[in-house]
């Protein structure tokens, strides 16, 4: 059970088919959803090293029980667009939504949204493991731990943020692709990417929870032999698939990104591209505990 996972798209996702099984809001009402099963998450498996290494078994090391699903099960499988293949990675954590369906669904009031910074957390003492939250979350980003009988979720590393340090997932990302800050802090990179340059969009905005994780859509190269054409004209990633993930606004975002790239290629300076390169921590994060007035 991974609070933080990266899945290959197109693909089934983790848990399997989470994007189509339900949850979220519609017309102000929570939407039904089944609970994903362990088959959807994938069972833990071990390898028969002992038999191979010490007990004389000549066959290659095998996983047992035979895995049928798992985190990023369809790693790099991708899809085909005509005769060209494509895939990209989609990192996923809890979206710390503005209107969290999980919070509404919990009869124990175990889930709350921190007033000071909007982080959605789950009180382990109040949780009774009823799992209404898992059903309600359209992103299936709450997990049930059957051993403890409690549900768990990403805490957005709030103890690190309170000390002025960025989330572990952002700090350790070798691709330097996670930007962290307050949306309404004009100095934060998140504010600039989402509200100034309008280059980042929430995932599945129609689920109604107003996520606070935003994605700069995968940069979409043209197909082979189309280098002089616009990305939208003949893209390698089918535009329909990006619209499915990020909504129709993705078309405008791609157009803006393409214009910025053209400008940079012509020798101009693009503030947006400089920001996206994210050379140092100062560019990528703005963690200011004093801005969120933590009540001690």
């Amino acid at each position: 059970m991974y609070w933080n996972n990266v899945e290959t798209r197109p693909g089934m996702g983790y848990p399997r088919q989470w994007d189509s099984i339900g949850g979220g809001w519609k017309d102000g009402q929570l939407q039904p959803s089944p609970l994903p099963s362990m088959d959807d998450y994938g069972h833990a498996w071990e390898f028969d090293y002992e038999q191979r290494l010490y007990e004389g078994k000549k066959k290659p090391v095998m996983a047992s029980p035979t895995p049928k699903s798992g985190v990023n099960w369809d790693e790099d499988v991708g899809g085909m667009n005509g005769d060209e293949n494509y895939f990209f990675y989609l990192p996923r954590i809890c979206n710390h939504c503005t209107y969290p369906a999980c919070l509404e669904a919990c009869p124990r009031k175990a889930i709350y949204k921190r007033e000071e910074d909007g982080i959605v957390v789950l009180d382990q003492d109040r949780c009774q493991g009823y799992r209404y939250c898992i059903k309600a979350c359209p992103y299936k980003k709450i997990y049930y731990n059957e051993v403890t009988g409690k549900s768990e979720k990403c805490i957005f590393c709030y103890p690190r943020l309170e000390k002025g340090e960025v989330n572990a997932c952002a700090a350790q990302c070798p691709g330097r692709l996670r930007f962290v800050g307050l949306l309404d802090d004009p100095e934060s990179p998140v504010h600039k990417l989402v509200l100034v340059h309008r280059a980042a969009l929430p995932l599945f905005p129609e689920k109604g929870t107003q996520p606070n994780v935003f994605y700069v859509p995968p940069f979409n190269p043209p197909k082979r032999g189309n280098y002089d054409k616009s990305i939208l004209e003949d893209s390698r990633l089918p535009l329909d698939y990006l619209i499915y993930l990020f909504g129709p606004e993705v078309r405008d975002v791609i157009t803006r990104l393409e214009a910025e790239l053209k400008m940079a290629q012509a020798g101009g300076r693009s503030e947006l591209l400089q920001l996206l390169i994210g050379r140092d921590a100062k560019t990528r994060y703005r963690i200011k505990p004093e801005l969120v007035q933590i009540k001690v």
Partner: protein
Amino acid sequence: MRINREAFLFAIVLVVTTIAGTQAGKTPAGQTLNPAPLSAPAEALLKDSAGWDQVPDHRISLNRTPPLYDTDEPASLEIPVLDVRLARAGGKLLVQMSWADPTHDSASLPEVPNTPPETRFRKLPTEADDRFFDAAAVMFPAKPGAMTPSLQMGDTDDPVQIYYWNAARGPMLMEAAGRGTTRRTGATFAVHGAYDKGRWTVALELPDLPASTPLAFAIWNGSQKDRDGRKYFSVWQVLK
């Protein structure tokens, strides 16, 4: 436009009558429960169902809670009848609950390590995540002499104690002062649950409650995702 106020009022009255009618039709009156004095030690009686043979059986009708949430699947299984026997032995009140349940929803779960979660480097793998377990509970007022607190886990002035047993997680003593306030106290109690031929028999050891104490019972069927208020429950019964 003139609103037909008479018809509107009539509609409201009609709805209220319907609700009251449903409640009255489904809710059986409470019984007087007669505990038998037994000489065998309480500990032995919990495990030995034969020791209860001479104890009179009270058949208690159960109700199904109405759907609590719009997103819930409807409950479809038949409402069971609860057989309750009570005995006083060794300064304790023993309650034996028995009911038919064709689906045995239990499991042997790994023990939770007794260390703070943040110090556990590796979590124990979870075998399943979408199953629920059978369970049973007895509720009574936390204040001696209280009459009948709200059936929805008591109320602010009349808190309740709940002796809850879960087929996989065992006994948990809980307290509550209204719906949504149920809290595990961390305390436990002696209990024995056995499943045989499609039937649960669960014996719980309660404190020696005085006569006239009201008791309410509840059972959960894991197969139909019962948990929380999604359950079968009785109205208050009175201890003789």
